[in-house]
Each structure stands twice: as C-alpha cells, then as structure tokens.
C-alpha cells in the first residue's frame, strides 16, 4: 500500500511496563496495508510547540479488526503527549512508511533478536511468521527484569529467550551472547535494537558461514549474477536484516535527515530502510 494520511482513532491505551505503553488505534487502511518492519509517522498536538512528527514501528496490525498497535517508551514531550491521549481521540498518522522485512520463502526457522524497545520493531514479524507456519525464536535483551517485555503479549508459538544486563532474569549478559547457540538452527535472522547491538550481530553474521562451514550452493549457470545491493531480492537472501533507528524529519525521503552510512554512501532510514540487509550498512561508521 502506498503511504497516506490517516485519521486513526485511539481505542485503548495501556501501560505494559514502567514507562512503556501500547496504544491501539482503529485505522483499517493501515491495518490492511502494512507489513512487518514498516512504520507510521504520528503527529502530536500542535499546541505543545512540537514541530516534528514521531516515527513508530507498527507493533501489530490486524486487518480483520482494523486495529494497529504502537509500542513506545516515554522519552520526551511527544511520547508524553501521546500517553495523555484518550480513547476516542483521533491522531493524524502518515503511513505505512519504509520498506518491510523480507523473509525468504524457503526459510523455516526465523531468529528474531530485540534489544529493549527494539521489540516494537520485530513484534509484527512474529505474527507474520506464525501465520506463515514458520518456527520462531525471539531473543530479547533488557537492562533488568522489570524492563522485560511480557511473554503474555507474544504469540504462543514463539520460543522466548531473555537476557538481562544485571542477570535479574534469564541469561546474565548481552542478548548478543545468546546468538551463537542459534546460528546453526536459524535460516534467517531479523533484529532491532540499539545500534551497538546491531553492529555486534552484523559481525557475528559475517563470520557465520565460515564457522558453520556452509558451502556456497546455487546454480552453476548464471551463478555470477548478483541482485543489486539493497534490492528486495538481495535482502530476501540476506541472513541478517536489521531495523535501524535515526532521528527523523519528513519520513518520506525529502529532507535527508534520517540517514545512516551505508557501504555505498548515505541511506535514508525512512525510504531505503528502516530495514536493511546487514551487508548494506557501513558498521565501522557506527559507534
């Protein structure tokens, strides 16, 4: 679906964790036309002196009920304004925006990796994968137990593995330390979270073939032909796809504000992303 301006009616707000909220909106156009990995650009109240919209990953979308949900943390005036919105309020949303995750049709085992609020970036992919009959493991990292995304909000079919920085729940350490245990099982991996986490995952993914001794299979004839970097076909073949975050202006590709550095030059998170194949990003540019 092409992007459009949608008037979305807030139907439910709930605080799922301290400072973290899930809001449900009735927006049938968005619910029917969105894919996992895409986002919406939400306008906050004009009267509060906020001049920019706020981008949010589409957390879930249910075409049957026309409900889309957004999952966010209160970090500033925009998100605080959102938490004060009441049922029945209509919010101006621009979406769906950006390019979605591309799952190879042959992939049976999907590894989803989320750090903190990164859960909002991959949550919808879990729904899509369950519907597609795929097996899913979600690796989730948080600072401490009180920040861990409730398993009750995930589909039953998902295997959910948690790591906390302070060891208060699950693995004691970073979520990236769990990944080697799953890299042989996974056909593809999809990640969203802090850039440092994505950088570590990209490094792991780059060495995966060698560690596993995977032979480069494929047709001999025409085997030299490669899909252009950044194309849907190339991303579908990538082992690791990452959903990147950047401060954003227009969200339609006009202002060039939300770039990350790619191997071939700047990439707009809002247009070429927010999902990228790990190979597209110049990870050395990310601190």
């Amino acid at each position, binding site marked *: 679906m*092409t*992007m*459009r*301006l949608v*008037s979305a009616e807030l139907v439910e707000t709930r605080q799922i964790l301290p400072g973290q909220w899930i809001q449900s909106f009735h927006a049938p156009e968005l619910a029917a036309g969105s894919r996992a990995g895409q986002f919406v650009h939400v*306008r906050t109240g*004009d009267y509060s*002196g*906020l*001049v*920019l*919209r706020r981008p949010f990953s589409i957390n879930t979308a249910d075409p049957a009920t026309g409900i889309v949900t957004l999952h966010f943390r209160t970090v500033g005036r*925009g998100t605080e304004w959102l938490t004060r919105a009441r049922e*029945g*309020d*209509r919010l*101006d949303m*621009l979406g769906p925006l950006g390019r979605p995750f591309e799952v190879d049709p042959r992939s049976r085992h999907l590894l989803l990796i989320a750090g903190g609020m990164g859960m909002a970036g991959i949550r919808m992919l879990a729904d899509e994968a369950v519907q597609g009959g795929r097996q899913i493991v979600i690796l989730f990292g948080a600072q401490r137990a009180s920040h861990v995304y409730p398993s009750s909000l995930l589909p039953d079919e998902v295997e959910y593995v948690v790591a906390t920085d302070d060891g208060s729940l699950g693995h004691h350490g970073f979520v990236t330390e769990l990944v080697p245990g799953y890299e042989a099982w996974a056909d593809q991996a999809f990640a969203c979270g802090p850039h440092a986490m994505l950088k570590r995952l990209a490094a792991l993914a780059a060495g995966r073939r060698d560690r596993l001794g995977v032979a480069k299979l494929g047709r001999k004839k025409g085997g030299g032909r490669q899909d252009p970097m950044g194309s849907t076909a190339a991303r579908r073949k990538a082992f690791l796809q990452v959903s990147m975050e*950047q*401060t*954003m*202006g*227009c*969200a*339609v*590709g*006009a*202002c*060039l*504000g*939300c*770039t*990350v*550095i790619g191997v071939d*030059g*700047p990439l707009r998170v809002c*247009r070429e992303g927010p999902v990228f194949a790990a190979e597209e990003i110049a990870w050395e*540019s990310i601190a």
Partner: protein
Amino acid sequence: MKARKRVVTSADVRAGAKAAKPARGADKPKRTPTVRTIRSAIVAVDRSARSGSGRPRVETGRTAVADRGTPLAARPTLAEREALDRIDLSVELAPQRGLRLPNPIMVASGTFGYGVEYGEVVDVQRLGAICCKGTTLRPRAGNPPPRVTETPGGMLNSIGLQNPGVDAVIEKYGPVWQGWKVPVIVNVAGESIEDYVEVVRRLDGVPGVAGIELNISCPNVGKGGLQFAIDRDAARAVTAAVRRATDLPLLVKLSPNVADVRPIARAIEEAGADAITAINTLSGLAVSADRTRAFLGNTYGGLSGPAIKPVALRIVYEVAQVVSIPIVGIGGVTSLADVLDFMACGAVAVQVGTAIFADPELPVRLGDELRAECLRRGLSSYAPLVGTALPKRAGAPSVKGAEYRP
C-alpha cells in the same frame, strides 16, 4: 463519540482572521516608491483575458483539501466558489524574465525533496512553486548522522547539502518537472563562484527548470556556502557571475547569520537578482543526551520552524525598505496569520518549510485560505495586503552602529 478532527474551513478562517486583525484594507496610506514597486510584482490580470493561456490552474479530485471531513453546511456554496475562483493569487517573481507563480505559497528547499517524495499525499500541482533540494556541481554525501533534532518550537538540521549532483538531478527529475504545471525552482549551492556558474550553466535551458534560487547561505557546509552570504562583495560577485551565465529567473537566499543584512541585500539587487528569498536557517547547536558532546554529527545545525519567525520577519522588514525587487519570505510559516505577517512586512510570496513535516497538506491549504481571506476582505488580489506594516519613512535599523550608507 468525540468531536471530529478539527479541519480549517473558509468559515473558520473568516472568524479567526476577524478576531485577530482589524480590517485595514479600506484606507491605503501613501507608500514609498519602494513599496509600490514590490506591490507591482503582483500582476492583477483581467479574468477574461486570462481564460485562454492564463495562470495554470489544475483541477483535480482534491480541489478542496480544506473541506475534507467538514459538514456540508460549512462548505462554500457554489456562488462563493465562483467568487473564490475570481480572486487572482498569481504573482510575478521576476518581472523582467517571467516567473509567474499561480499562487504565492511555495515550498522551501530541503523540505520537499525534488517534489516527488510527497507526491502520494500532496497534490503538488496546486503549490505556488517548488524549491528543490540544494544542488551542487558534483554529488555530495552530506554530513555524518544524526542530522536533525527537534528544539523548542523548531528543529535543527545539518544535512550538509547531500545531493546526487546537478547532472543526475537534471537527468532524473527534469522530465518529471517538465510535465508539471507547478514551477520548479532549482536551489543551487557551491563552494566557489566557478561552481555556482557551472551548475547554473548546466541548468540553463533544461525544460522544467523555471528558475534558480542561489543558496549562498547554507550554514552546514565547511567550505563555501555561508561565506558568500556574510560578505557584501562576495554576495555581489557570485550573484553577478551567475547573472551573466543565465537568463533564468534568479532568486538569492539571504542568511540571517549577519549583523546587518541590508548592504548584502542591496548588493544582490544591484548584481542583477530578480528576487530575494529571506531567510535561510540560523546557526545553532544541540547537546547530546549524556552532555558529553554536540548532538548533531556536524556539531552545528540550522535552526528553522516557528522559533525563527520573528527573526525572519525582522529581516524581510529591513530588506523590503532597501530593495525594490520582490521578496520571498520564509521562516516559521505554519498558518495563514504567518503568511499575512510576512506579506505585511513586504514579502510578495512565502515559502513553507519545516511545517510540511508535521502537516504535508499545509502549503496547499494555505493557498485556499489566502483565497478565502481575500474574498472576506473583498479583494480581487492580495496585492493590498503587501507592505502594510512597513514604515512610511525609512525605519530605524535593528543593528545600531552598522548603518549602511551607500
């Protein structure tokens, strides 16, 4: 159920504007020749004479964006619509070379890409003009991220003139622009006078390029950019060089990052610019969340949005008193009241920038609202609204001790 989303209608405009501003259209005080020249930029053409090849008016299915979702009773009647259509919003920005805009609401460079990005949600054909992203001779990768951040009542950006270079722009977007009725003005930036001249030379004669806006005031590039806007002689030199290279309508965009903008504006006028755009962003800075460094990858950024509107008004006000070429006002326009403020200070057209990010439909809607405002005041064009706040005699300068004496 709660009330519907508030949508501005012509009725709201009437009520709001009446409360905000006492009608002042009737008594016209005498103006200085300067102001009269500015007003003459707005050409009032007899409607019958226009019908054939007149101002480009594009009828689409979305003619009344402002009416979406409003109750039928609040929509203009057929008679009102006819009266609205009779109002002439066209404006000539380059009287000697011909740059007629269908209406005075333009979109600002850097906020609207190349006009195609917002195409799915905005009817670009109803805009007054599009100023495209700053274009340089060679491709530029721009500044390191992060490049934008919100600030109170505004935003900072430091894109750093990322663009694919003039040849790629012409090849990719020229054919698209050629098919549009909305004039596209190419914003040109460079590091040297030779760069500017070469870019303009390549744009000269390209179908679909209606004019040039010289960006001599970008605060976000290390070399070049700003240096031309803060020095009177450099501004004169670059404007004159570009003027010699092309007959395209030429706008020059001023920087607010100077002590006194008037000598620079005068120099630009003398060097042959057709119009002046005022203003570019103000240089600013934001601090990272942990307060260990500047937030933006480029350290400094350009401040835009409602926060800079008073500065922009001041500069338009000052420039309008010293030049006789048309002035395009820009800086924090978010409503019809802002448009009217800029016009009162002497701008014959305005550009909308940052506000587009929150409300992509705003520029088109402002055109509709300006039309409704003219109808409410019984005007056939908005010319009488221009320059009404300017002093009858030359006003006091905002900068003491930097008075410009020609």
